């Protein structure tokens, strides 16, 4: 038994070592950073502890802008992408021919590099002196004037951002919902058919309750993912998100840490912990709501 003990720990050693250094220690450290006031990364000294970092971050206009952007992205993309995914999955589930082809195509964005495809989106939407861009060409067909989606008005930029976010997150949601729909027992549908139940009623009384756990799962992970939005923003608007007015909370954390405005791990830590608190609260609320649903 004793030798077995030793052997087991030996097998676990690499995992424990890596997790300890790169997950457990940082977790404690980030809390310490966030309360060290005036921390200087060069001399590694600080002149006190307190909540000043939090107060600084919460009063920073860039952070407030980042919070606003992040919340808008979350509020628009999470319901929209979940609803759209549900619609597409219902469609996929009702057909036989070409189903696999459609499934494969719809999944494609998942395996692509966000930065690379974001650049394509940027070019399709961008208006330059040489060209109005593809999207503006399509808008012109409907008699709408050219809009600068990349450097123009706030809501034009936000539209591109949300569009791209939905495009990126849909594959995963469609995949999950399609397999959830496929696993609903045929017997229920047959019974409903015999009773002559209308389609809408079948949907609200059978389909929806049967797949609701998966929908809640997607909503929860969707919220978490959307709150951490960052790479997609960089892909469209470039690394200087503050200049574009499109920064997100995670983007703010990284800007504080590194780059031209960087060198402030304390502010970055405070911002990251605020983000964690927000995500944690929202997740708890989501879980509470999903518990209340009769299954």
């Amino acid at each position, binding site marked *: 038994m004793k030798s077995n003990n030793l*052997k087991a720990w030996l097998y*676990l050693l*690499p995992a424990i070592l890596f997790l300890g250094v790169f997950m457990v220690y*940082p977790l404690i450290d980030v809390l310490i950073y966030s309360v060290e006031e005036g921390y200087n990364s060069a001399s590694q000294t600080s002149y006190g502890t307190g909540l000043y970092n939090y107060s600084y971050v919460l009063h920073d206009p860039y952070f407030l802008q980042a919070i606003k952007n992040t919340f808008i992205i979350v509020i628009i993309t999470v319901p929209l992408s979940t609803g759209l995914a549900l619609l597409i999955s219902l469609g996929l589930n009702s057909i036989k021919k070409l189903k696999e082809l459609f499934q494969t195509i719809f999944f494609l964005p998942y395996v692509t590099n966000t930065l690379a*495809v974001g*650049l394509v989106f940027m070019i399709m939407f961008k208006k330059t002196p040489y060209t109005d861009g593809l999207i503006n060409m399509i808008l012109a067909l409907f008699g709408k004037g050219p809009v600068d989606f990349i450097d123009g008005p706030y809501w034009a930029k936000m539209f591109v951002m949300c569009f791209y976010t939905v495009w990126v*997150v849909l594959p*995963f949601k469609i995949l999950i919902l399609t397999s959830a729909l496929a696993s609903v027992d045929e017997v229920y549908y047959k019974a409903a058919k015999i009773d002559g139940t209308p389609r809408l009623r079948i949907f609200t009384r059978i389909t929806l309750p049967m797949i609701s756990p998966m929908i809640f799962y997607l909503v929860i992970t969707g919220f978490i993912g959307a709150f951490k939005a960052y790479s997609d923003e960089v892909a469209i608007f*470039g690394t200087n998100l503050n200049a574009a007015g499109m920064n997100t909370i995670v983007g703010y954390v990284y800007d504080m*840490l590194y780059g031209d405005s960087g060198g402030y791990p304390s502010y970055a830590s405070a911002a990251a912990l605020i983000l964690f608190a927000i995500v944690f609260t929202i997740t708890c609320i989501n879980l509470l709501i999903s518990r209340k649903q009769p299954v």
Partner: protein
Amino acid sequence: MQDYDKISKQARTGAVIRKTVTYTLLTLWGLIVLFPFYWMILTSFKSYGSYNSEYVPKMYTTSPTWQNYNDAFTQVTLGKYFANTLVFTIVTTALMLFVIVFAAFAFSRLEFRGKNIVFTLFLSLMMIPNELVIITNFVTITDLGLRNTFTGLILPSVTSVFYIYLLKENFEQIPNELYKAAKVDGTSDLKYLFKVMIPICQPTVVTIIILKVIECWNSYVWPRLITDDANYFLVSNGIQEIRENGFGRENIPAMMAAVVAISVPLIVLFLIFHKKIMAGVSRGGTKG
């Protein structure tokens, strides 16, 4: 009887309409998904001159050219970014497999004191978002002088609690009798692990490898923090670098050639393994 005919006819037209609408909507979304790919391939074959002379972009090109691909690999160090990403992906995945296979084996087959507590602690680490720990990791790697090295790039991403969990669950499905029989035959734990358990759980191992490769190929945030020397850029950072100061004046066709080159490996991988990848992702992949 006439009523019956009427109703059944109505039902049939209803079904046809429903089907048409469904296929139209699915095709529409399919086009939205595919269009950016079409656009990047198309643009990458347009010559610099013809692209810039099109005030209204054309949906086709009459004179395709390979020049942009040539530019992408000669004017910027795209080849270098590829090589870096390849090294990063292979080493990270290999190291991670080493770490998680042993951990999963310990949790699934060995009895030791504190096993449950350690496993619970491992699981609770799954809730920790990357954004929270990346700050200290950045400082740690910087203090160790490992910025702009492969070691610094690779080390923080060689463990994944989730994959340990996935593999452990799979290992546990192998009947214990097999293990005991092997023990009676005098097979060592290591031999049993590599000759019996891993071959049996090969599908899960392959899934994990594929998911990790996708993750590595697309990783952006950590490499961006830890490298500012273009010699160590991965493809994601490379594309950002190309966008911000590559190719002199905005040479969009060449940029698109670089984008196509970066996207192709994963898309080919996906087309070959699409069933495996989709099954793997639905079992446990959330992006990021």
